[in-house]
């Protein structure tokens, strides 16, 4: 396997980690927004407690992905950012508001009206950012970003709107949002020992799990006309059908585990399910970074750069893996004493 392919794979790994960890943070924001009923306040608190210690680390995965993209595949980066300027800009503003609102709410002071207002900003931004992130990925996958070069230079709509403001990318956006909410709710069932609170999130996990299925179906329908390459990758090729079947089985197992209150199993299945979808996408668009014509090899930086980045990744992993393991053991281990003690 070439260095470029390994690095493209690493990029998907970073995205995968961002989706599973950062994604769950966004999902937590969704449940903050939708907190209802007699335990609404406890729900919000559980979300804040679960995200607090890890959100900084979780969101660095996105930075790693973007840095790998512009270092190892500069031509792809330059090509993606221009037509997708608007959704990316929107996503950035979402990230800014969400990150800062979370910190302001946590550290800003007493539980008062100001805090509630930050809570709302945090929750709204959690809704918008995954939508736009998914839309961006969908636009790349659909081949519309790659195809934009054929549009007339002066045609603003064709160059800067059409690639992403279309049914398929938008449906991927909705799908992403549903996945994040599903992941968050599933994780949160394991973040508390309080029975009724846990049950709240079990029901939310079930509902969002069903929403994930519905959004996936809508995405497939939209992919029909809009993303022939994607459709072929998802349905047409030899490995596709078993892959789709496996994803479906995992998805159903996750829902079943939630119904039977097997929370640890549900979490594992949810993680696997979302990862399978992501890798299915990556695989379906291989060997292109920007379909329909820019391949991994064509977009790749010179070999020296790739080798150095690989070396840096290995060295970095030696520091990072134990540190991450430590972070999650301290805060997500079985010994869960009351958190947020600094407040």
């Amino acid at each position, binding site marked *: 396997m070439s260095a470029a392919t390994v690095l493209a794979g690493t990029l998907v790994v970073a995205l995968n980690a961002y989706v599973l960890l950062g994604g769950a943070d966004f999902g937590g924001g969704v449940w903050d927004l939708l907190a209802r009923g007699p335990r609404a306040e406890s729900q919000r608190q559980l979300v804040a407690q679960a995200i607090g210690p890890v959100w*900084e680390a979780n*969101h660095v995965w996105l930075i790693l992905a973007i*840095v790998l993209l512009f270092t*190892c595949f500069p031509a792809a980066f330059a090509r993606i950012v221009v037509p997708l300027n608007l959704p990316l800009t929107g996503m950035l503003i979402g990230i*800014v508001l969400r*990150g800062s609102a979370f910190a*302001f709410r946590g550290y*800003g002071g007493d539980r008062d009206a100001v805090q509630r207002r930050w809570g709302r900003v945090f929750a709204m931004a959690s809704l918008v950012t995954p939508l736009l992130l998914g839309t961006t990925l969908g636009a790349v996958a659909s081949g519309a970003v790659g195809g934009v070069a054929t549009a007339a230079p002066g045609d*603003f709509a064709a160059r800067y709107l059409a690639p992403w403001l279309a049914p398929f990318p938008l449906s991927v956006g909705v799908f992403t949002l549903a996945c994040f909410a599903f992941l968050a709710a599933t994780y949160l069932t394991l973040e508390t020992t309080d029975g009724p609170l846990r049950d709240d999130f079990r029901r939310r996990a079930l509902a969002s799990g069903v929403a994930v299925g519905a959004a996936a179906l809508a995405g497939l329908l939209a992919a029909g006309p809009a993303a022939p390459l994607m459709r072929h990758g998802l349905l047409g090729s030899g490995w596709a059908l078993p892959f789709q079947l496996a994803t479906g089985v995992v998805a159903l197992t996750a829902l079943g585990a939630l119904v039977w209150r097997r929370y640890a199993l549900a979490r594992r299945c949810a993680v696997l399910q979302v990862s399978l979808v992501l890798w299915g996408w990556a695989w379906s668009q291989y060997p292109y970074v920007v379909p329909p014509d820019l391949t991994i090899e064509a977009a790749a930086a010179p070999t020296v750069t790739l080798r150095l980045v690989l070396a840096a990744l290995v060295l970095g992993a030696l520091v990072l893996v134990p540190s991450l393991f430590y972070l999650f053991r301290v805060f997500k281990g079985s010994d869960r004493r009351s958190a947020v*003690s600094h407040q």
Partner: protein
Amino acid sequence: MSDLLAARFQMAMSLAFHIIFAVVGIAMPVMMVVAEHRWRRTGDPVYLDLAKRWARGTAILFAVGAVSGTVLSFELGLLWPTFMRFAGAIIGMPFSLEGFAFFTEAIFLGVYLYGWERVSARAHLFAGAMVAASGALSGVFVVTANAWMNTPTGFDLVNGAPVNVRPVAAMLSAAAPAQVLHMTLAAYAATGFAVAGIHAFLILRGRRAAFHRHALTIALLVGAPAAVLQPISGDYAAAMVARHQPAKLAAMESLFHTQRHAPIVLGGWPDASQRRTRFGVPLPYALSLLAFHDPNATVTGLDSVPRDQWPNLPAVHLSFDVMVACGTYMAIVGLWTAWLARRRTDFARSQRFLLAVVIGAPLGFIAIETGWTVTELGRQPWIIYGVLRTADAVTPMPGQPWRTGVFALVYVFLAIVVTVLLSRQIVRSPMHTGEFRTPGGGA
């Protein structure tokens, strides 16, 4: 406003915003760790209170630093896609390494902020030290990338495209040592003086709690040595600029004519059309002496630079003078600190010293903003000095002023909120001698 101007404005605004939080993210952890270490050694709970309060304030600033940094990573492409296509493979390396530094920083920050009661004393202190070290390291890496833009190397240019790329050589470009040293010192000097200034102000206003005296001492411990060293490292930076970026040096010093015995012009208004500086105070020989350490050295003036490659002269020259003025003042206060410390005088007793520290509070940040203005505006019209013009690197997408406007609103809003939140923190700091909350109750 043209698209190019809007893009430059947006980049400048984002960086000017980010750098404040980045600098705090470099220096604040050092102070927190010193305070915690003193608490662990002396058992004096005031130090614990201090460490916890500083950590709280830092958490807010860190979050803003992280999100504004994320914005920058994308903006490099959103605003300058051609630059990134050209430079990604060459200077992506320091950005990748910076990514790992961010990770380490974020992980241990989580442990530090939320782990007071979950990890051992040693592990907690270690986490703080890791945050401090990786913060400094991220600054080092990213400034390396910037240094390459000023003194590009590590590739050969063939038909306008880079070939034979050597990323390690690019990281070790001529400007890198000077810029890295000067920027890292700047972080400690600016943050140390700002924090010292705030506590000195509160002491002057009658809050004489041990809390503020301890805080003042630690902040000066971090800020004063850096401030004393800063003019020396600045001189080293100027020597580097003189050798590798003559147009920038000429703009900084408002030197229109190539000459021996070149003077330094203090202040004044460089008039590009008349090719002279109005109202400035010239110091004969000084520039030749400072830039090349020889009063007879010839210094390149703007007349040796094609007119269309002149940077904005008043902005670069006056920014440079403001930075040097701030640096001189801070170095003097730094020496005064050392003198008082040697005589074991309580800093809080000298009203005049406290006042001098209060005046110094904003100067480090002003020097950082003006210093970066010198570096970045002084490089114009090049985004990569001598290789790629900024105008050729900008995004082809029309309507940039609108997007810049939206970002400006977001930043103004964030700036207001951060200011309000931090001043609340400060207002709630202890009033009287001995007033503090018990560690068990949390700070």
